[in-house]
């Protein structure tokens, strides 16, 4: 596949409506949502921009982590006393009331750590949308990144500048993280 040029349309931070319109226009030009990604310094919900819902695995990873934590707790509570049985204070080897504490803490620990791991892993795993970045994003500007065939260039230019955007053609995909 030939390298496609990535375009970046930058909108001012209060131009949310214009952004939404621009997205609509791009779709009208036959650019599918998959080839567009919106980057912003402020969280806008997909609804606001009329974008399809994004999908994340973080909750599933979190729940998986919680289950792992629960199982670890079960092992520590009920498994380890059997490995080297030691009696203390006249208590049974495995006590249920105290186990609640361990269950709770380890489940929570599993949940919270795996939530973070989920965020981390998803953050550093490659994304399929158009890459590209501009520091002005963190100044609150809204960027629309998209791949477009070269023949659409004039049309694009006209439409987007008309909405008040600044267009950067062929933004370089700067390395933003360590790898």
């Amino acid at each position, binding site marked *: 596949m030939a390298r496609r040029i990535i375009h970046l349309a930058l909108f001012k931070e209060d131009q949310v409506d214009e952004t939404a319109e621009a997205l609509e226009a791009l779709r009208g030009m036959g650019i599918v949502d998959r080839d567009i990604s919106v980057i912003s310094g402020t969280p806008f919900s997909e609804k606001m921009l009329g974008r399809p819902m994004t999908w994340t695995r973080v909750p599933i990873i979190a729940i998986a982590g919680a289950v792992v934590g629960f199982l670890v707790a079960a092992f520590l509570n009920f498994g380890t006393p059997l490995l080297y049985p*030691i*009696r*203390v*204070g*006249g*208590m049974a080897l495995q006590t249920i009331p105290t186990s609640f504490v361990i269950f709770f803490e380890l489940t929570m620990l599993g949940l919270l750590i795996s939530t973070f791991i989920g965020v981390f892993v998803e953050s550093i795993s490659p994304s399929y949308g158009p890459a590209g970045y501009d520091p002005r994003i963190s100044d609150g500007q809204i960027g629309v990144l998209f791949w477009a065939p070269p023949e659409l260039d004039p049309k694009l230019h006209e439409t987007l500048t008309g909405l008040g955007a600044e267009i950067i053609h062929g933004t370089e995909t700067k390395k933003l993280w360590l790898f």
Partner: protein
Amino acid sequence: MAEQIKEQVNERWGMVIDMNLCTGCNACVTACAMENNIPWVGEDDAGYGRGIYWMRIQRYWEGEYPETTPSYQPVMCQQCGHAPCEPVCPVFATVHSEEEQINLQVYNRCIGTRYCANNCPYFARSFNWFDYSYQIPEPLNYYLNPNVTVRRRGVMEKCTFCVQRIHAGQEQAKAQGRAVRDGEVVPACAQACPADAIIFGDLSDPNSRVSQAARSQRSYTLLEALGTEPKVIYLKGEGTYGG
């Protein structure tokens, strides 16, 4: 020989202290210290409350002059059946011995949280605030008992019912292919007690001297309401001696 030895030993060691006989002379305290390598801590630390005493004689005064009467209560680790010190230790450094039915303190496992000492209602535990035994000058360390671990700083210690003597007694009995005799195993305090106020033995044997004394109508245990099931039983008050 090995076949004859009963493998399952189910002694339940216990102690009876007759308060009517105790004169409060503190010989038991010294005997305990000499047997168990208990270091002295010196005047400053002893005065500060760091003295290491596996057993101590609590002296209370009762009454107004001239009826002021001291009462002497020897208190050591009560070897509770339901020991409050045990479950709180995070690393199983103080555990219940299934074998001897006493409370153990494993010095090398102790990390020094001092939780057990807080939780002991009898204050039977002593902490090694410094390397007291390490400071014993040559050649005074020659008398240290090789059968008892010398504790270093940062660990808790307490009365063990002279478990090294219990083991020696059991070992000897086993080597000779017999059961431990009543009175064969005595801790240092009971051995020294000039008034013979301390009786030690196997509570599971109904005929042992200690069992007979423990059945006395004069018997009580310390802080009975706490439900710690102590193995140290005190005798006090009127009544016939010995049950």
